[in-house]
């Protein structure tokens, strides 16, 4: 048969020599190899104490965003739910009443907003679909839970901390996105100036 590549290595099947048939040299060689691994560096990350670094483009658990005054941005348009390939998002809209302007940015808001973390595949399509910059995927992941129920994250679990009342936690939740957003704003400003 014609060889398909020139990388074929023909192995000779010779009978074993006496040294090979004794097995012991080979066994000792193998044992030295395993022994050398005793001193190798271990790649393990001891999770709760050490954490892996997640880059800013990491698609982790979703966060519902607020604007600078702390108002929820989501307007319950449902585009994210439509975009979601895993059908993980459920929501119910409600009308903003007079006097609630400090809570919700738009006239319509999401009274109920749930994401099922067991269904979500963390594709990030919801973030892309959202016209209001109201949802994005953060740099953390959904922690383990004992019940299925615990994986259905409601609005309270998803909402970002209030930027004025809890600025530290807000910054933390924002992660590197904060700097990334600033830079993005800057570059788009520069671009518009260039234009």
């Amino acid at each position, binding site marked *: 048969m014609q060889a398909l590549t020139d990388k074929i290595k023909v192995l000779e099947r010779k009978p074993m020599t006496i040294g090979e048939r004794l097995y012991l040299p080979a*066994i000792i060689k*193998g*044992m030295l*190899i*395993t*022994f050398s*691994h*005793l001193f190798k560096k*271990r790649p393990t990350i*001891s999770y709760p104490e050490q954490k892996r670094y997640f880059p800013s483009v990491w698609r982790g658990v979703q966060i519902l965003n607020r604007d600078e005054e702390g108002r929820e941005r989501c307007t319950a348009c449902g585009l994210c739910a439509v975009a979601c390939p895993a059908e993980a998002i459920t929501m119910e809209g409600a009308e903003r009443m007079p006097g609630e302007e400090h809570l919700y940015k738009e006239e319509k808001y999401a009274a109920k907003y749930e994401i099922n973390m067991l269904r979500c595949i963390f594709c990030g399509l919801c973030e892309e679909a959202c016209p209001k910059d109201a949802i994005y995927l953060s740099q953390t992941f959904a922690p383990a839970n004992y019940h299925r129920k615990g994986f259905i994250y409601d609005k309270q679990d998803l909402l970002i901390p209030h930027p004025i009342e809890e600025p530290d936690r807000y910054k933390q939740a924002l992660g590197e996105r904060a700097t990334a957003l600033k830079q993005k704003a800057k570059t788009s400003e520069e671009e518009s100036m260039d234009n």
Partner: protein
Amino acid sequence: MDLMVIDIWLIIEKLALVAIVVSISLLIAMYSTYAERKVAAYLQDRRGPNRAGPFGILQPLADGGKLFFKEEIIPLTSSKFLFVLGPALAMITALMTSAVIPWGGTLNWFERNISLQIADINIGVLYIFGVISLSVYGIMIGGWASNNKFSLLAGIRGASQMISYELAMGLTLIALLMLTGSLKMSVIVEQQINGPWNIVYQPLGFLVFFICALAETNRTPFDLPEAENELNFGYHQEYSSMKLGFYLFAEYIAMFISSAIMATLYFGGYDIPFVNESSLSASIGHNLVTILGGFALLLKVSFFLFVFIWIRWTIPRFRYDQLMNLGWKKLIPLALFNMVITAVVILLLDK
């Protein structure tokens, strides 16, 4: 009537010694499970158990606790009495050999010479052999009583493996006994303290003995009775809870004891290497030397335990025909050869 006087202190002393030796064996067996997992992890670039207590040293307790609280299942179709007897026998035979191993010299306390050996019988080596060959009953009875094809196969395998390797082991020991001229463990150690260790005279014998010890304790590469890929779980497939624990535990105790036997027979027992015991005891006291000797023995034992574990995580399991070939066609001729050579040399030198 001196004969009728029972030395009550002797009984107390021996009982205490039995308790100490058994609990030390259990403790070491417990921690060999931990060592096994740790060494396995380190040989495979992992970290091993490190959550229970600092460095995971409470892990064996957690494992034991888990086994205790698991449901005990005795299969309906099993033969109940034998089913329970199996693990008990495995455990008992594993522990019984520790009786004749000299764990140290003598302690001078309250004007008594307390020997750190439970029973210094004159057929020590034979006794060990007798008890070790009993240990196959644990496996066989367990495998048979479970009324499970795989267990039965594993039990038969275990029996034939043990019988095959016991032969070679016995032959190497004959060579050793020709050298020492005594079956008494204490005498064998005494000779090694005064002269060189037996390993110097019997390197080949030790090699064969070591391989046979691996086979006798059912350790990889000879753990065919529990070959998962062909026999599911082997002879303890139907066992659960602490009965399973006993089987697993008995393996570690057997490992500990056979390490101790190897250290005693070939590596000088409680002899502290490169040290002249008598001159040392003149300078720091007899008791201290004895205790140091005990530690020396434990160190040697730990080394052998490490080698056992190291081998397990390096070499894959033998196929059954390979196992039998090795036992009957290689080790037995080798042991015979070793025996004949030793005999000839002894005759020539006229020792």
